[in-house]
């Protein structure tokens, strides 16, 4: 259940009682900052491969790739999708659902710097699953993690290299990320439920 709030199915309604924590413009600024951090850390765009974790991580990865190539003025940055369904540790606590396709760019991931991209970092279990999934696909030179929101409450020794916004939350709150491409509504991040603060 730890992941259910970060990946509602497409078209999931937004809780009207919630409050906006990131507007569309703010999301755009976060992504540009993350892009700059990545380039700075990697000393350029060489060997970069972005892998989004479905569902919304894929769209974020695609947007980051566009920004990276604009900023760096280089060709397209290889971008793909890494589905983690088959590697999750909580399969038995919910009904099965069909996994999304894993798409690895043609250059592969061997000896590349793979940046995993996800919308919300919470328990860290999704990222653990992603790291396992990655191992079976090749041997990157390094793996980094970029997330739009870090809401805390880690259950594994995992941290993000690049964070759009740190957002202290309680367990009972839901963080809702909506992206134009995936959800068909304007970009927004909202927080809902939990105790009124």
């Amino acid at each position, binding site marked *: 259940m730890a992941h259910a709030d970060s990946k509602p199915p497409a078209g999931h309604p937004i809780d009207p009682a919630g409050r906006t924590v990131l507007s569309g413009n703010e999301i755009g600024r976060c992504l540009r900052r993350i892009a700059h951090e990545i380039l700075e850390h990697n000393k350029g765009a060489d060997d970069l491969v972005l892998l989004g974790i479905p569902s919304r991580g894929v769209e974020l990865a695609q947007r980051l790739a566009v920004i990276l190539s604009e900023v760096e003025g280089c060709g397209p940055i290889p971008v793909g999708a890494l*589905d983690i369904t*088959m590697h999750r540790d909580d399969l*038995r606590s919910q*009904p*099965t659902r069909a*996994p*999304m396709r894993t798409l690895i760019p043609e250059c592969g991931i061997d000896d590349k710097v793979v940046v995993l991209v996800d919308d919300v970092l919470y328990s860290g279990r999704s990222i653990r699953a992603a790291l396992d999934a990655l191992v*079976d*696909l*090749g041997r990157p030179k390094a793996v980094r993690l970029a997330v739009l929101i870090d809401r805390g409450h880690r259950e594994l020794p995992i941290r993000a290299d690049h964070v759009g916004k740190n957002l202290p939350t309680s367990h009972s709150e839901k963080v809702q990320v909506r992206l134009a491409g995936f959800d068909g509504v304007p970009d927004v991040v909202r927080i809902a439920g939990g105790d009124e603060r």
Partner: protein
Amino acid sequence: MTKHLISSADLTRADVEAILDTAASMHDVQRREVKKLPTLRGRTIINFFFEDSTRTRSSFEIAGKWMSADTINLSAKGSSTSKGESLRDSVQTINAMAVDALVIRHNQSGACQQVAGWVNASVINAGDGTHEHPTQALLDAYTLRSRIGELDGKHVVIVGDLTHSRVFRSNVITLMTLGARVTVVAPPTLMPSGIGSWSATDGFATSWDFDEVLSGEDRPDAVMMLRVQRERMSGGYFPTPREYTVGYGLTRPRLATLLQRNPDVLVMHPGPMNRGLEISADAADAPSSVILDQVSSGLAVRMAVLYHLLAGEGSAA
């Protein structure tokens, strides 16, 4: 999703679509260097085969292993069953070993359904007598879907020994679950009894005349040829193999007619083929033929079935 997969009728349209979508991802795994997913780590799957079938058994075995389950093959030939042990005793012995799934192939109709009532494990029907073979129907649907897209409104023609075909029985159900229309063609002697009353269902038709179906208004999107078993050829059901081919074989001229009417038509056969009898070599090897795709789909579809039956909430522990 259902606990057991005994009949294709156990699966709703949403279930079938989830399995086929999953199979697409599993197909990618098949192309990787490391063909292994941890999903079913610690689960035990027994392939209990009361009837020989190298192909289906190895397909289930590999599917289970690539999902990290421990798969064990048991053949009832030479085991206590041939000494007259009852089916219930045979499977309960296995069940006592706390297995998670029993994949069962049996030469008698209904055996899997009976077993499901006796064990805690999930039971997956890998072909029971002349009843059903649901994973074959799923892989056929997968093959079709990956070539011609959604099956809604598509017209599939199934030709051959319907009476003794579990492939046909499961395929009719799965194809119609996905919204396809099905016409089945056979001589009257190879039509299951009472099939006339199936026709009442919308989108299902029967015919004794293959050529009429090929040239009919409803042009086929796919033609599935069923194997004619050797033991049916001795004159009991039709006079000679030659006569069968003339009436019901996918011959070169029939293939030409099909292609003329629909250049994208698909030719299918669950195998093993009797070339020159129910299907000509031209048809089997034509670009329209997806017979080899059917074989390679089998693995991905069975991985998907194992995942949906065994991985989620409420699966056998």
